[in-house]
């Protein structure tokens, strides 16, 4: 397998995982959360006990594999250090752009695994908690999910512009 084909496969897997992750992030924020108040109370367990746990499984593993393949891609392309330094050493806009995308992505993945998922486990009753603890956990998970939605806008701009505007491979 040539190096070019290896790069392509890793980029393909990065995009595939990223669509899974960000697709579910936007499902939560654009569909599920705004429509929960419209669902009758007796039907809410269908979302809380079935749909949300399944969606959260693919959501958090999508995040993990997106980061894994993204870091592999940056390493294979030879710009991982320059990108993490936001192009301040190389003075290249392409490194700055992909660097911003990588940092936003890393912050978002951290939020998924270490803030959103632990709080969702409490909110959905996967781990024990009082009614007050569940409400507080649901609120915290929602706010950090919204933070990720906010960051997904510049993150995707940075990722796409690094290739399309700055011609970074």
């Amino acid at each position: 397998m040539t190096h070019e084909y290896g790069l392509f496969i890793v980029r393909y897997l990065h995009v595939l995982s990223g669509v899974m992750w960000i697709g579910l992030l936007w499902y939560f924020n654009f569909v599920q959360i705004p429509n929960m108040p419209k669902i009758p109370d007796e039907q809410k367990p269908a979302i809380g006990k079935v749909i949300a746990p399944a969606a959260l499984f693919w959501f958090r593993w999508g995040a993990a594999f997106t980061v894994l393949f993204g870091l592999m891609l940056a390493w294979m392309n030879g710009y991982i250090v320059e990108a993490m330094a936001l192009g301040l050493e190389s003075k290249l806009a392409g490194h700055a752009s992909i660097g911003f995308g990588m940092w936003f992505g890393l912050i978002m993945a951290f939020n998924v695994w270490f803030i959103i998922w632990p709080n969702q486990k409490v909110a959905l009753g996967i781990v024990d908690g009082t009614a007050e603890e569940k409400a507080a956990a649901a609120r915290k998970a929602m706010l950090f999910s919204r933070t990720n939605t906010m960051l997904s806008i510049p993150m995707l701009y940075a990722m796409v512009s690094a290739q399309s505007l700055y011609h970074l491979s």
Partner: protein
Amino acid sequence: MSKILSSLPMTITAGIVITICMVLIVDAIGGGSPSMGDVPNPASLMNK
């Protein structure tokens, strides 16, 4: 901040504002227009 994040339209607006700020910073680091990016000027390569 939680007030912004509680509203989906406000969240999206904040995301766009961050994007604009990021573009300005990237442009300042790169020191050039996005259309030129990191691609070397062919004329400068011919003169080397």
